[in-house]
């Protein structure tokens, strides 16, 4: 079956601009993890849908703002992570927890704003939703109901797994030359595993391809029955990986230690749990039609107090394997992107790729600004 998407969906800057406007500025987007903001004035900055976003812990409550001082549009926080009150480094303006201007140095002598202007100046605030230890932000003025994007069952599972996050994480990012959608297609397409990861990931599945196929194949539905809520899914499979001995004794773990848990959070996050002890979060952040920033956050798992420091350090060897698998994927996806051209024929999907076709239909609805949910979630069968 032919893909509803043509090469222009992976190459065109116009399509990219539409995605930014109708997907990334409309939907709830994963923004960060709570342990990275677990103290007053802890903050992180990033971009979502082309908008600079600041997440700041204001006396225990996590708030999201457009990271721009209303005076000269200087970013209020300039580091990616840190701890500081909201104070613009350019002219020293400070802000209240609701984003309104608190103080302006030498205001009376230099600025002379009238009362109305003074009151109107504030940092734009965005909606924030916490799901366990995962933080989501919606840039839209009228945020989509959270349940319209994620089913309550899915929310419950993600919240439960993320509550096992420990106090630290390793964070890194990298810019790669492919369209962000290739990455989520790669996650759904299990059939690449024996070929792209023959010596890294594939041997970890004890049942071989048949086991992978049984556990990772979603049940294909016709495109008419698939909705936005269906694009976020969970699945798990047995893994042939033995966690470090000392970890078993010292750390709490999610689920079973011989399983690989996968939570795909549409549009652009793949959240996994390997052996119950590590929780790699991969986010495919679109930078342009042909460039994606891969943001990887690997939280530690909850630990006994004595082990807090130890486990922060132990993250390093644990993520080495993770990066190796990702690099193998990226080599393949960059090759695909390089060979794309506007007049190339659409992709010809096989039966096992039916979910990709369904996902593409929902994506196109979103791109056109249409509602991607038609039916109440309770009446629907599970897509996955």
């Amino acid at each position, binding site marked *: 079956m032919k893909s509803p998407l043509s090469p222009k969906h992976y190459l065109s800057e116009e399509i990219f601009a539409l995605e930014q406007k109708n997907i990334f500025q409309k939907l709830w987007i994963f923004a960060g993890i709570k*342990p*990275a*903001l*677990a*103290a*007053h*004035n*802890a903050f*992180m900055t990033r971009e979502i849908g082309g908008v600079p976003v600041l997440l700041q812990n204001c006396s225990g409550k996590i708030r999201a703002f457009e990271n721009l001082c209303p005076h000269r549009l200087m970013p209020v926080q300039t580091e990616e*992570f*840190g*701890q500081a*009150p909201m*104070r613009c480094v350019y002219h020293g303006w*400070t802000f209240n927890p609701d984003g309104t201007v608190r103080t302006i140095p030498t205001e009376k002598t230099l600025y002379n704003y009238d009362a109305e202007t003074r009151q109107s100046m504030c940092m734009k605030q965005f909606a924030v939703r916490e799901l366990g230890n995962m933080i989501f932000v919606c840039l839209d003025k009228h945020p989509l109901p959270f349940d319209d994007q994620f089913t309550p069952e899915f929310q419950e599972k993600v919240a439960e797994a993320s509550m096992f996050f420990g*106090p*630290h*994480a*390793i*964070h*890194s*990012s*990298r810019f790669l030359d492919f369209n962000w959608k290739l990455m989520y297609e790669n996650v759904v397409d299990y059939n690449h595993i024996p070929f792209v990861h023959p010596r890294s990931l594939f041997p970890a599945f004890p049942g071989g391809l048949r086991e992978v196929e049984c556990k990772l194949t979603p049940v294909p539905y016709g495109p008419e029955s698939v909705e936005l809520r269906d694009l976020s899914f969970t699945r798990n499979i047995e893994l042939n990986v033995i966690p*470090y*001995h*000392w970890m078993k*004794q010292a750390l709490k773990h999610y689920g079973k230690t011989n399983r690989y848990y996968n939570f795909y959070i549409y549009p652009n996050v793949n959240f996994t749990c390997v052996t119950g002890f590590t929780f790699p979060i991969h986010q495919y952040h679109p930078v342009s039609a042909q460039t994606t920033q891969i943001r*990887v*956050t690997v939280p530690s798992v909850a630990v006994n107090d004595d082990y*807090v*420091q*130890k486990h*922060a*350090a*132990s*993250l*390093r*060897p644990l*993520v*080495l394997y993770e*990066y*190796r698998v990702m690099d193998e994927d990226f080599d393949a996806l960059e090759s695909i992107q390089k060979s794309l051209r506007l007049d190339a024929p659409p992709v010809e999907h096989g039966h096992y790729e039916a979910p990709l076709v369904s996902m593409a239909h929902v994506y196109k609805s979103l791109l056109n600004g249409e509602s991607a949910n038609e039916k109440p979630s309770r009446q629907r069968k599970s897509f996955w």
Partner: protein
Amino acid sequence: MSHNPNQKICLIGLGQVYESIAADLHAYASPDTHWLFRPIGHVGLLESCADSVLSSIPQGVSLFVAVDGIALNYARMEIFVPAQERGLPMVNLIHKGACCSPDIQLGCNVWVGPGAVIDYQAEIGDNVMINPMARIDPQARIGNHGWIGRGASVGSCASLGSNCIIGDDVHIKAYTSIGKQCAIAQPGPWSQNITDGTFAEKSIWAPSRVIGEGYTFNTSCHAEESA
């Protein structure tokens, strides 16, 4: 090289450092030194066996803990820290083929492998492993529980926080400041100052960093923002 006659040293641990010392004992102490050995079968057993191993060491014996750099040297700390808490005497093992300036400061449980050079007024913390052919330049400072790889160098006046791993053939340039719990394992020169918990190595995208309590914020830090 230790010249204390009739000294008794107990070598505890596993891995390459342990094997290297055990295979070349005369290069570390005088021939009349009495050696005891407490090999550990597996790194996963370190924590559970620490008490029994340390209790089995007779009085008057000094220790040296040799475990390779796993998880920023925390594995070695499973034995080193309890030994330190018990007040057990610990020695430094400096290979006779290493060259150390007389005015350097060494903590305890420091290993200096063959061919390594530690130049004048360098400061080395406790439980630091300096691998063969490594070079520590004048006035460089290395924090506790460090690991300096084979052929690596730490430039003049450079400083490394605690629990840092400097990989083989990494050359930290003079005056560079490296935070605690960092790992730099990309062979070649490194001149960038980096904050706590930063990892730079071939297999991890550089730079990666630890985020969270103690790294990007402190829960004890009171806001300067006043009411």
